[in-house]
């Protein structure tokens, strides 16, 4: 009983409602603010410095490679062009497609296996058909390809423009 009474009697400690800014506090805040600002500026400068100089992979259209005359490639055949990093694949129906070497799973170089009639990736054994379609996972996208142009029977491949796709469509082929 007595205790509760005591509590009631206790005077309320008055906390000063206004926080007074003295000079030291003021300058401390200013310094901190300035420091933060400087840090931000530095971070900005560093990022700008580091990323503006990076060679951007700007596609350079017009990097044409002459692959040869259309009739020199048999239907259902694959010819590697390692310098241009593509396989020129002629389908059964005579259509051409220039397939990128890169496996769409994690980027290893695929190899054409004549006997099995498919591309095989040595890294995690994805397999692709002659038109680039996935035959075996883990890859889930068809092989990327480069645009093929055929003028007067001469095949040119534009290795500056890589085209990505999910699956094979007929209109990706070029005919002589």
């Amino acid at each position, binding site marked *: 009983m007595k205790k509760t009474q005591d509590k009631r009697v206790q005077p309320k400690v008055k906390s000063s409602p206004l926080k007074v800014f003295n000079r030291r506090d003021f300058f401390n805040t200013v310094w901190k603010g300035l420091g933060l600002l400087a840090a931000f500026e530095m971070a900005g400068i560093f990022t700008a410095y580091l990323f503006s100089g990076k060679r951007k992979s700007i596609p350079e259209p017009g990097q044409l490679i002459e692959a040869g005359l259309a009739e020199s490639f048999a239907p259902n055949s694959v010819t590697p062009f390692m310098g241009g990093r593509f396989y020129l694949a002629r389908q059964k129906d005579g259509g051409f497609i220039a397939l990128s070497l890169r496996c769409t*799973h994690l980027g290893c170089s695929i*190899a054409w296996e004549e006997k099995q009639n498919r591309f095989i990736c040595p890294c995690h054994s994805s397999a692709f058909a002659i038109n680039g379609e996935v035959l075996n996972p883990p890859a889930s996208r068809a092989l990327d390809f480069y645009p093929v142009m055929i003028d007067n029977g001469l095949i040119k491949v534009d290795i500056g423009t*890589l085209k990505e796709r999910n699956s094979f469509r007929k209109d990706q082929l070029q005919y002589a």
Partner: protein
Amino acid sequence: MGSVFLHLHPKRVTEASVQFNRTFGLGGMAALLIVIQIITGVLLRFYYAPYPAEAYNSILFLKNQVLFGQFIRNIHYWSGVFLLMIAFLHFIRVFFTGAYRDIRNINWLLGLVLLILVVLLNFTGYLLPWDQLAYWAITVSTNIIGYLPFAGETLRTMIIGGKELNASTLQSFYAFHTAVFPLLLLLIVTYHFWRVRKAGGILTQHTSEEPVMIPVVPNLVFKEVIVALVLVAALFTFAVFFNAPLLEKANPTFSMNPTKAPWYFAGVQELLIHFNPLFAAFIIPFGVLSFLALIPFLQYQELPNGIWFISEKGQHSAKSTAKFSAVLTIICIVLNQYILKFEILLSPLPAFVSNGIVPLLILFLLLTVFYRFYLKPIKLNKEELVQAAFVFILTAFIILTLTGIFFRGKDMELTFPWNI
């Protein structure tokens, strides 16, 4: 020099803390290896040229024309490997003696950061010789980043500075390997050591008696010198007999079969064979790292007692959890490889469901069963439970890594080590 070295120590330490089997000298060994890395690294910089056209040749020159060139390179390589292993063992030692709690919690986090830094140092160094091994291992590992949702592709292009590995990748890896990461490592290591002293030295077992204090010279320093000499001897022996690997010059048009990740990523690569990349390379590793970072902050009832595996019960539960985890991991690897191909079984579902969420849920289910029927009945306290979880992850990680290194052959198919 001597006095600088001695200043790292207090004048006197407790008798228990200089027992070799308290720490196995692992932290000290790591520090020595860092020094060796810096010395040999600086020496290598005098010959190395960080440009794709010249990098490989500069290594050949170093090997064939420079006196002790191969030897210095070997020491740098092996001390990097040793450093990673020893840092890892140190991390395990600290966990199992409970030296991560209370005042040591920040140091546990710093230790984790250091461990990651050492992995990054090894990884960035891996690319520098620009040989087939380097080129394809780095290609595959950086391509994994592309699977991150939304920003993945942008991030990947940013890190390697283009669509494929190129001159600017090599240059930035070089800058990270020889400047950014070593500097960070030195700064954090120094702070790490300082905090050990601040926490009152090495964590030792609690006893009721007043600890016996003994002078550091000669008691501790004598032991440290012996450990250092043995370590250096082992390192030199390795460097004499085993050359750092170097294959043919990088050839972007031809991938080796199989293309394996560097050994410390073999576990993640093994996961990649079983899970969708989003899960194997991000969700699972991120989950594990967050768990590790949280360990010291879980509010334990008892004080840290510095006893290995906490208690009798802790020892038993750790052992059986390790066994359970090993068996489970092996069964899962084999089953998933030959029979349970989720992608094919559940093919109408998107890949991250069939080959990510589904197997992960099944795993969690199995874990719940294990908890319900084994861990719960034996009534572990929180510390022992956390230990069981740690043991489970650690064992699975080790099994995955060993599988990736020793049991994956041509086309990354499962084989026995003697068939690789």
